[in-house]
């Protein structure tokens, strides 16, 4: 079946003439249309009328796109009711680049509202279910993208990661998720959560698929002044060994707070890494315990400003009222969900007169210290490795009443976001029958090295994805 192929394999098959791009698209389109995980908010009606050019590197392999990427004429709602039915007049650079490389739009995937959440329960369009266990969350905020790939209704998907929103759902659904170096991929057309942290990236079945997508996503963009691109072309990873590679395991992110089953799987992987020739030592990221605090100041602060534009004037939903003030406050009351409101409140408070220095100013300084911690670690180690998420997928509703416990879920992924460095999550074996993730983080712009190491570990781990299991069953 064409849907059994990884994206790299499918692209090769189409180019070799063994598979038609339309047949491939239709196979996925049917699955996506029949999706019962609530992973999609929109699915394409039909395959593109024009076949991709014969030399298109992505050869017509369709891609599922997180809802928050603007797609011209296609609903782009960022998981929010305030943008219900919003049809942007332009397409995000990253989506356009994938299309130009031959990857057409399969569907838009569900997400936590404005990418705020770690469970996908904050979507204005209902929660996404974890294909491994439909009573559990798929993680978030790119939960729809992760569920689509893990459930086999998309060959691969585009997500965004602000504090772990690609890596954590990838871990909880047993797939690969890559957050590249900040600035590697244009943010133009990505509906912003926290501008200085938001970064697009692939959610894929394999590390090689992530490499392939990144190759066509990355690059400076004249439409995003903070985009710089990568310094070298991404090559498909081939490494099978980790000889000479030094892995640092930060004490602060691998001990307390990690579920025993997750820790066991993590330790097995470290052992495997040693068998592949790597050396594993513990290291320190002294400020990592404060990363979460810094993150939950900086990201809400930026979001409180980024979401001010949703005012009912130019687009989106509006609650009519006699006065401007009432129009604003009611539109935003009805349009935003509880978590978005919480973060807007938190961020507005942190920036407000009298509190800026104590919160925002300090958080910016913590951010400096965290980047310094990583820089020091990378003087001794090639990569920093941690579990991606402290727990396996939790049950729907388990944490919705306790925002803080939901936030604490991000503590392994947030430090890399603050430092702007690349990090990848690969499937790390099961705990209680549910996937766990292994996170590798590298210095900025070291994506090729990172992908190579992840590829070697992936091969050695031999994790059987859900789509592979279901095929076997």
């Amino acid at each position, binding site marked *: 079946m064409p849907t059994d192929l990884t994206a790299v394999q499918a692209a090769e098959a189409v180019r070799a003439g063994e598979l038609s791009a339309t047949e491939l698209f239709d196979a996925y389109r049917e699955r996506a249309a029949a999706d019962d995980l609530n992973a999609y908010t929109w699915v394409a009606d039909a395959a593109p009328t024009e076949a991709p050019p014969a030399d298109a590197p992505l050869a017509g392999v369709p891609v599922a796109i997180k809802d928050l990427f603007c797609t011209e004429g296609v609903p782009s709602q960022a998981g929010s009711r305030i*943008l219900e039915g919003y049809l942007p007049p332009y397409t995000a650079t990253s989506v356009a680049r994938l299309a130009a490389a031959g990857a057409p739009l399969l569907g838009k995937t569900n997400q936590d509202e404005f990418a705020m959440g770690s469970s996908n329960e904050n979507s204005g369009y209902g929660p996404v279910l974890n294909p491994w266990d439909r009573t559990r969350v798929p993680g978030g905020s790119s939960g729809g993208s992760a569920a689509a790939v893990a459930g086999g209704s998309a060959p691969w998907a585009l997500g965004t990661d602000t504090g772990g929103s690609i890596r954590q759902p990838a871990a909880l659904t047993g797939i690969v998720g890559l957050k590249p170096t900040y600035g590697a991929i244009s*943010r133009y057309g990505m509906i912003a959560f926290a501008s200085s942290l938001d970064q697009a990236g692939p959610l894929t079945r394999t590390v090689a698929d992530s490499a392939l997508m990144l190759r066509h996503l990355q690059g400076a963009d004249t439409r995003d*002044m903070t985009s710089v691109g990568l310094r070298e072309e991404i090559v498909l990873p081939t490494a099978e060994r980790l000889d000479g590679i030094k892995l640092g395991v930060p004490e602060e992110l691998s001990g307390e707070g990690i579920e025993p089953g997750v820790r066991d799987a993590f330790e097995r992987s470290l052992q495997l890494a040693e068998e592949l020739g790597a050396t594993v030592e513990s290291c320190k990221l002294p400020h990592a315990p404060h990363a979460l605090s810094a993150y939950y100041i900086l990201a809400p602060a930026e979001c*409180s*400003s980024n979401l001010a534009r949703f005012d009912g004037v130019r687009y989106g939903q509006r609650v009519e009222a006699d006065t401007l003030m009432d129009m604003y406050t009611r539109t935003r009351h009805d349009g935003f969900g509880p978590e978005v409101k919480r973060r807007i409140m938190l961020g507005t408070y942190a*920036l407000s007169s009298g509190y800026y220095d104590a919160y925002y100013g300090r958080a910016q300084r913590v951010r400096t210290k965290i980047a310094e911690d990583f820089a020091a670690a990378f003087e001794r180690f090639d990569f920093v490795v941690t579990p991606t998420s402290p727990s396996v997928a939790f049950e729907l509703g388990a944490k919705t009443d306790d925002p803080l416990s939901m936030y604490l879920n991000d503590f392994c992924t947030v430090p890399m976001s603050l430092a702007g460095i690349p990090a990848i999550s690969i499937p790390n074996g099961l705990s209680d029958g549910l996937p766990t993730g292994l996170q590798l983080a590298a210095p900025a712009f070291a994506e090729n090295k990172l992908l190579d190491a992840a590829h070697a570990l992936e091969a050695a781990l031999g994790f059987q994805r859900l789509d592979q299991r279901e095929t076997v069953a």
Partner: protein
Amino acid sequence: MSPVEYEPVIGLEIHVQLKTKTKMFCGCELSFGDPPNTHTCPRCLGLPGSLPLPNARAIHYGLLIGMALECELAPRSIFHRKNYFYPDLPKGYQISQYDEPLCGPGRLGDVRIHRVHLEEDAAKLVHVGASGRIHASDASVVDFNRGGTPLAEIVTEPDVTSAEHAREWLTLLRTTLRQLGVSDVNMDEGSLRCDANISIRPKGETQLGTKTELKNMNSFRFIERGIRAEVARQEEILRNGEQVVQETLHFDPRTEAITSLRSKEEAHDYRYFPEPDLVPVTITSDMLDTARAALPELPAARQERFEALGLQPDTARQLAWRSELGDYFETALQANGDAGSPQAVANWVCNELVARIGDEDPAGSKAAPGAVAALAGLVERKAVTPNNAKLVLDKLVNDGGDPAQIIEAEGLGALADDGELEGIVEAALAANADAAEKIRGGNMKAIGPIIGHVMRETKGRADGGEVTRIVREKLGL
């Protein structure tokens, strides 16, 4: 006890729309008077996912302004977000500069500059009254054409001492900005807008009083009148033993009334923070070289150059500060080989021409610069009397043409020195024997009727000085 005398302390904040081709953070063309909402894009509408792209020419213009105002140029400056909700502000924040502006302290003339920074303009909000489309009994319509126009905000130190001083200094600033070519500096069209921070204190005191902010005055005349009215209002408050309240005020030029703009809402809390969608601006030596090379002659230098031509300081300043007059004057000097002396030409331009065209640009007048220069030359050479030359200038301003030809056609030329005048004077003395007798008796004031007679006879073509000389000669004085 004599009443306390107060002195005003005034600082100005001037918003200048920069004359770039495109907006501050997007490629939409600037427009004035185009149909509403025809110059917008995802960026200047603040559509979700859009990002700002700073205009390189706006930075360049900012540097030109900084150099002209002798500012310290910041090697590195950053943009901040100024957060507040208003329908004319599409993103819910204005991208502006805060604690790291492009230009620091400087000076123009006798007023110190505090800072100059760049930002984006708001859109236009038009009140449309009752509307059936929404519940509100009262509605407004937003036009985003202007939204995102690059602005330079120039903030002075409180060095302005009076309403007149404000007007005079703003004239210099406007000329400087016009010379730089960075703005249309047209107050009617809103490309130059001014707020004034005004306080008063007893003369001789050094401590500043409580200031008020007078907003958005849209002509030099209103600024002068507005400041004068506010200073008077504050003086009355203090004389009554009351306190000035720090607030934002509006001056209504029709009624001269000053009203508070303070809204019922809470005080503003703009929650400034560094704009994460932009990277710092660092001034490179290339950028500085380009700006320096583009720097034109500024009013102060031009005034010096005009003085070196022999012009009186006042005349030189008038021509330099009102650059279009200066341009006209220079063209006039170059245009005609028979031009009068620089001071003579300058006098004709600054006094007689300005009296006829007011605030209009002389370049648009029918009187060609060369014609005015030639006229000044004709007067200097006594080919026409000053009084008749004014009639010639009237003609030039109304219909254009060549002064020599007008003089010829209208018969306005001065009498040739060929004895004709002598005869007319003799006739005048004969006809006014009484007056002649008085003059002979030493009363020169009695010469009036004689001169009047001569002028009537010559239709004003006689030179008054020459007539006097002949009278004295004939009467043996």
